[in-house]
């Protein structure tokens, strides 16, 4: 986050400056109304796509820029400056959650049909994993794809799907066989104009209001076999790999958001007076700020360490899970303390801290709960 980190080169700095300005001028001024409308315009995708912001790490041949993971770190860190977590989440689903697996495993044809338009922003992407009866227990999904000649017939439902009301395709996790558990799970690239597909509900949420979240229904949806991504029945492994990028960017974003939240709270507390002096000057406040800054720094460093491993393609499941766990819990704690420091005003919508508090609550749940993270970490430790 600071230019002192040697992994950030001059190019990262130029991108950070340009992208920060973009976020502050083109996104931030509209966020209040997007939060009310519970969605933001599709043009945000196409506009960002045109500027190359949606395909940073993807190969140049596909319309990307072929850059390293630290550009993604800068992207996630600057996006939080739009003043909410909903818009960043929707965009990160597009760039880092629903599409990396296509680059990894996709055929040339699949990349052309799905990845390239996602990079330009012409197609909005969603990731379809959670179901009404299966979230953390991914292996418990019940949506099925049954082979029928050259096609598959998909039946089932997905829920909590970010970008779900308007996605053009869903990177969809389904069951392709009768084996229980994770043995017969596969991933499909599912165009949402397929007959039998519908958005059954736009979901109301605690926070992340500017991002749409939906429940999706699949009724006898016939898709050609060429939309199967990678090998049949390997989906669970692919997904676990895909989760790494999702959790990592979530951690980076959570710490950048927390840092911004803390800085804005410090500004507020320096101006706000109680008992004749600024709230920030009370020892209890000063120590709280010191504690928040320390935890944010620790979380950010853990996320950077995981990012470094990830960038060098070194296995980092434990480190990424630790980052997700720690950054998630820390961001909830920081948001809660920042709200407390605002006193009564913190409970009002007037200050962004209330939105940050609502939005932060997702981070210990989305992309794998804290409980699942602890499970993974303990398994990595062999306990």
């Amino acid at each position, binding site marked *: 986050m600071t230019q002192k980190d040697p992994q950030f080169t*001059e190019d990262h700095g*130029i*991108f950070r*400056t340009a992208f920060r300005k973009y976020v502050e001028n083109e996104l931030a001024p509209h966020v209040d109304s997007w939060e009310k409308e519970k969605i933001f315009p599709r043009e945000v995708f196409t506009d960002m796509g045109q*500027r*190359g912001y949606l395909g940073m790490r993807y190969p140049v041949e596909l319309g990307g*820029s072929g850059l390293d993971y630290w550009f993604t770190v800068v992207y996630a860190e600057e996006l939080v400056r739009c003043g909410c977590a909903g818009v960043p989440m929707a965009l990160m689903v597009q760039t880092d959650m629903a599409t990396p697996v296509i680059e990894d495993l996709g055929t040339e044809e699949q990349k052309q049909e799905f990845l390239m338009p996602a990079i330009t922003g012409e197609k909005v992407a969603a990731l379809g994993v959670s179901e009404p009866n299966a979230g953390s227990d991914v292996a418990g999904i019940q949506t099925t794809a049954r082979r029928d000649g050259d096609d598959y017939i998909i039946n089932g439902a997905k829920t909590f799907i970010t970008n779900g009301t308007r996605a053009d395709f869903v990177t969809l996790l389904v069951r392709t066989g009768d084996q229980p558990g994770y043995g017969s799970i596969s991933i499909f690239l599912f165009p949402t104009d397929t007959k039998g597909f519908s958005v059954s509900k736009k979901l109301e949420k605690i926070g992340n209001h500017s991002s749409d979240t939906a429940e999706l229904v699949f009724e006898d949806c016939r898709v050609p076999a060429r939309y199967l991504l990678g090998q049949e029945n390997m989906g669970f492994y692919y997904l676990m790999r895909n989760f790494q990028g999702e959790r990592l960017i979530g951690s980076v974003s959570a710490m950048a958001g927390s840092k911004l939240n803390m800085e804005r709270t410090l500004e507020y507390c320096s101006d706000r007076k109680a008992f004749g002096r600024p709230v920030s000057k009370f020892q209890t406040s000063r120590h709280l700020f010191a504690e928040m800054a320390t935890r944010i720094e620790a979380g950010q460093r853990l996320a950077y360490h995981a990012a470094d491993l990830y960038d060098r393609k070194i296995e980092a499941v434990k480190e990424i899970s630790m980052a997700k766990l720690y950054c998630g819990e820390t961001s909830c704690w920081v948001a809660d303390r920042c709200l407390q420091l605002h006193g009564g005003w913190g409970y009002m919508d007037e200050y962004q801290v209330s939105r940050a508090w609502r939005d932060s609550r997702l981070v210990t749940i989305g992309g794998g709960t804290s409980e699942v993270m602890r499970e993974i970490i303990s398994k990595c430790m062999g306990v």
Partner: protein
Amino acid sequence: MKILVAVKRVTDPDARIRLNADATGIDMTGVEYKVNPFCENAVEGALQLRDAAGGEVVVVSIGPEEVDTYIRTGLAMGGDRGIRVPLEDENLDSDVVARVLAALVAKEEPELVMLGKQAIDGDNNQVAQLLAGYLGWPQACFASEIALSDDQQSAEVTREVDGGLEVLNVGLPAVISADLRLNEPRYASLPGIMKAKRKTIDVYEAADLGVDTTVKVRVLKLESPPERAAGIKVDSVDDLLGKLRNEAKAL
């Protein structure tokens, strides 16, 4: 058309700045630099003219190696190549900058020089005028609109002046300085940033350019403005009028 455009780094306008120990400058500990916003308008203006008329945009800055990043940003926005003249901030005044730029103009022979109307740190607003003077070129400062003639021999420049707009017709070559309303600078795109890596930034020493770098203005001392005193509340309009009349002597 070849356009030379200069960019300057300034202290972050949002930072709380303090004076250094001997009060001759700003204490830069913990303060970051940014590009002067008017210079971004100048770069954007130069790029738009080049995109319309063809040619080349050369982005220039004066300063230590760190200013390369501001030149590179101009190249990422679409500039064609860069030039840096290494001189330290302490050894610069508007006149030295104008003389360095004049020497670069002699070397590069552009048809147009574009600058920001002023830098938001010193707010001197002198370089464009001095440069035009040294070159014997027409100047059009505080441009809010530029229209190039079809034969590219002149430009119609709208400038914001007190009480209205003034339209000048300047023959090229000329010096034009940009106001904020000239345009909205583009954001560097990622392909732009990647392309900029391969563009060259030449470094020319002031001595090699034959520039006398003696400053004409030396900063002796800076002072922070006095802290603003707290205001007061009055009970009634009469009370307010009384205070304005008797204490503030404003009525």
